[in-house]
């Protein structure tokens, strides 16, 4: 008994030591790299909100000025942008959370047929960049677009889509996977005791959901609402495509507008980015203070599977609803892109003479700009995913071992970074690597390397969140055991953590690679001299009337990603040989940051 108590005291002491020192794996270097990659470039842009002369051509002027912030507050145009963003964020967050929650309940609590397939689709929706979905909906809903050509809509009906309702529809279709991930993670961690008890007491499924499940899910619902709001506020892809097409000014687009001219209005961009940070930080603080970070695992320490409710006569209706959902979120936008990729003119109608494979041929020819863009972007995205996941694992592991306050601050910064539009980070990179003495002497600016580093920086916060959410579910008793056995943190990471998180790391790798492949702002502003990457060619095609080429390129890229992901999933599945275990290992929510790390002793 004494020996056991001693061992326990030693483990506790060692854990306290770790919280001060982290993993000890080159920790100062890790923190320095993370700072240089992400926070430093962001700070240089946002800092100009209050130090507008920081990058004056005549030399840096460190005078403080609040005129840019005042301008944001006083300009009717910019105030409208803030109000529109808040309005869209609030309504969009509610809609996305309702749909995401309903989806999670259907997949986890019912016997809906094809459950595993339905569970994969949200990941696909999540992985496709929002500007791609925005562009697809523009093709569909233009007065001369496909739905009008097919006779499904009158031109006036199509025209009316370009307003708040249409934007909300696209935003909701794009964003519901996020609340779905959050709610599903809570559902899976909730345990089935309460539901089983209610069932034994004779309550029906609807009563159980309303009176037992939803109350238990309240913290997750709050978190889903707030994080969805933050995601909408920070979205750039839809703001720069469909919202831009309908002249619905959002903060992120106004930031873009402030930076897309000469001279660039960096103070205005920085001030609006600051507003965005305040909005996002506000929602995070609200999430923290409203108790949405409480663990729902107080019910049980085990993950006993739910006994699923039989849908019976509702089976068809639920499946129809799921088909409608994924048709809107995935299949119809992709179909629009497919049609545009194989037709000559958008207004040429769906007649045989308008069909052609010329655009696809261009993409498949490695000598063309599109072919080169596809080839090199694959290389960039792969490299960025390798670096981001490797570094993300080391850094997330270090942070996860530190104090609650450190975890809170770092994960909060990561979340805020995720929601800031990529143009802020991209401009920060130009300022760092082309303007700052020391950095500008490095032969990086204009090179392929800097683009890879840029992609890595843009992906790193996502990677960290993924890895934290996976680390969060590893019992601390394993770490205690390693500590007692004298195993170093590095060895524990390599021999225990990595094998257990293999599925999560593969998922993080895949998502990082896809997001890097389609990352637009970094691609535009860190464009390598050697040639444009894929997102630049796609965006350029859409803005110069070559949308068939753009769609063909996007389509081929998506198909390649799908093929690689499918092959990887098949290989992983065979090796693991136990899909249930793999499901447990997968991240249960993007936003499951380490300040909520549970200290249960499994």
């Amino acid at each position: 008994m004494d020996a056991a108590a001693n061992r326990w005291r030693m483990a506790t002491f060692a854990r306290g030591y770790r919280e001060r020192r982290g993993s000890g794996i080159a920790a100062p270097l890790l923190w320095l790299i993370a700072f240089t990659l992400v926070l430093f470039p962001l700070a240089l842009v946002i800092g100009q909100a209050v130090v507008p002369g920081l990058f004056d051509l005549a030399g840096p002027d460190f005078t403080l000025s609040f005129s840019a912030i005042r301008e944001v507050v006083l300009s009717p145009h910019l105030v409208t942008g803030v109000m529109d963003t808040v309005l869209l964020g609030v309504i969009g967050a509610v809609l996305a959370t309702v749909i995401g929650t309903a989806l999670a309940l259907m997949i986890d609590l019912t016997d809906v047929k094809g459950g595993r397939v339905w569970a994969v689709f949200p990941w696909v929706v999540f992985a496709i960049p929002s500007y791609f979905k925005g562009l697809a909906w523009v093709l569909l809903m233009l007065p001369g677009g496909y739905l009008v050509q097919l006779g499904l809509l009158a031109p006036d009906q199509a025209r009316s889509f370009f307003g708040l309702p249409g934007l909300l529809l696209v935003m909701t279709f794009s964003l519901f996977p996020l609340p779905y991930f959050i709610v599903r993670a809570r559902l899976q961690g909730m345990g089935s005791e309460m539901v089983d008890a209610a069932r034994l007491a004779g309550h029906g499924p609807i009563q159980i959901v309303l009176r037992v499940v939803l109350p238990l899910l309240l913290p997750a619902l709050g978190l889903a609402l707030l994080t969805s709001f933050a995601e909408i506020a920070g979205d750039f892809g839809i703001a720069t495509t469909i919202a831009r097409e309908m002249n619905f000014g959002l903060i992120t687009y106004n930031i873009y507008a402030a930076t897309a001219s000469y001279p660039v209005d960096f103070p205005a961009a920085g001030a609006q980015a600051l507003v965005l940070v305040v909005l996002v930080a506000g929602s995070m603080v609200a999430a923290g203070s409203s108790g949405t970070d409480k663990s729902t695992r107080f019910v049980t320490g085990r993950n006993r599977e739910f006994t699923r409710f039989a849908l019976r006569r509702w089976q068809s209706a639920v499946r129809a609803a799921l088909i409608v959902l994924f048709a809107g979120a995935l299949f119809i936008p992709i179909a629009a892109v497919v049609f545009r990729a194989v037709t000559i003119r958008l207004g040429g109608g769906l007649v045989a003479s308008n069909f052609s494979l010329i655009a696809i041929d261009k993409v498949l020819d490695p000598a063309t700009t599109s072919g080169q863009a596809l080839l090199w972007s694959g290389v960039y995205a792969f490299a960025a995913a390798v670096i981001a996941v490797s570094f993300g694992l080391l850094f997330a592991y270090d942070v996860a071992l530190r104090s609650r306050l450190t975890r809170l601050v770092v994960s909060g910064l990561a979340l805020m970074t995720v929601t800031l539009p990529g143009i802020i980070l991209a401009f920060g990179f130009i300022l760092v690597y082309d303007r700052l003495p020391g950095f500008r002497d490095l032969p990086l600016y204009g090179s392929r390397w800097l683009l890879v580093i840029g992609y890595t920086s843009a992906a790193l916060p996502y990677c960290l969140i993924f890895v934290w959410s996976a680390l969060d579910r590893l019992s601390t008793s394993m770490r205690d055991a390693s500590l007692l056995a004298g195993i170093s943190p590095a060895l524990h990471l390599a021999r225990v953590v990595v094998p257990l998180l293999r599925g999560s790391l593969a998922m993080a790798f895949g998502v990082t690679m896809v997001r890097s492949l389609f990352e637009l702002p970094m691609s535009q502003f860190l464009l390598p001299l050697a040639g444009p990457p894929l997102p630049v060619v796609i965006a350029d095609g859409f803005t110069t009337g070559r949308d068939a080429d753009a769609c063909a390129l996007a389509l081929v890229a998506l198909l390649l990603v799908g093929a690689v992901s499918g092959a990887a999933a098949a290989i992983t599945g065979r090796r693991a040989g136990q899909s249930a275990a793999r499901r447990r290992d997968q991240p249960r929510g993007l936003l499951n940051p380490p300040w909520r790390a549970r200290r249960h002793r499994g």
Partner: protein
Amino acid sequence: MKRLIALALPTLFAAGLVAGAANAASLVVYSSLDTSDPAVKAFTAKTGIHVDLVALSTGELLGKVAAEGNHPKFDVLWVEGSAVMDRLTKEGILKAEPGLTDKVDYTPLGKKLVPTSQAYFPISVSTTAIAVNTKKVPAADMPKTWADLEKLTGSVAAKDPNLSGPAYQWLAGIFQSMGVDKGKAELKAILTNKSLSGMPSGESVNRSLISGDAKAAIQQDTSIYDLINQGEPIAVVYPTDGVMALPSMAGISKVTTNEDAAKAFIQFTLSTEGQKAMLTTDGGDGFFAPVVTGIMGNGKRVDNTASWQFLDDSVAAAHEKEWKQWFRDQFVP
């Protein structure tokens, strides 16, 4: 085997990246014009000088140039609009190259567009005119002047000058020819529909025009000729009260290390060979008005450049932020 793959992949990748960086000594051209691509290819074919072309939309390209500040990475900058080039010259980003185009056989318009600073040079020219959807506007109601657009108020599309160099050139031109106060009043009377008045790109303007959402549009004439060439029911109107020349200008960076190649490139684009290469461009930019004598523009372009007016670049550059802000507050939702 796994270790071999693990070693081989990064090595191959690094080799690829290094190979990509091998062209570090190439001429770097930043351009927002589609005509730059065939021009670059023809130049390389003729001289053997490799060119790295950074092609982005005007707004994004200028944003990049602005962020690079006094450490520009381009050797040649080639964009539409003279006001921004004037500003870049005054800020010491562009270098004066006196006599660079002395031997160029410019048209009368081309000669007039060469600034006294000789820090940037006209390569091609277009203007902003009125595009009319002939299915929506009967021939008898065709506008003849800018003021006639008041009759179509609420149905007139225009680009946001905050995102378009050509649109700013047009805005500054309107203020120059009408006077700022009268120009502002005129625009307020014409651009009353915010869903059409501050569009983000020429492509958006074209879509609204073709779909009939807009009966008329204030649009670059190259884009209008492109639509006409595609068989769309569009007519071009050059207002009788004058249009402002919109030259595409090329200038050389003050810190270039490839000055000779940069000069050779600009001179090539102003040769018959260079201009003809540019005319092979697929799309709107290929319908420019040539600035070199003996070259005819593409499509149905009429040569009326003798009547085009010239922008006072200094005034336009000095008021750029203020006028763009005004337009944004008035017409961009």
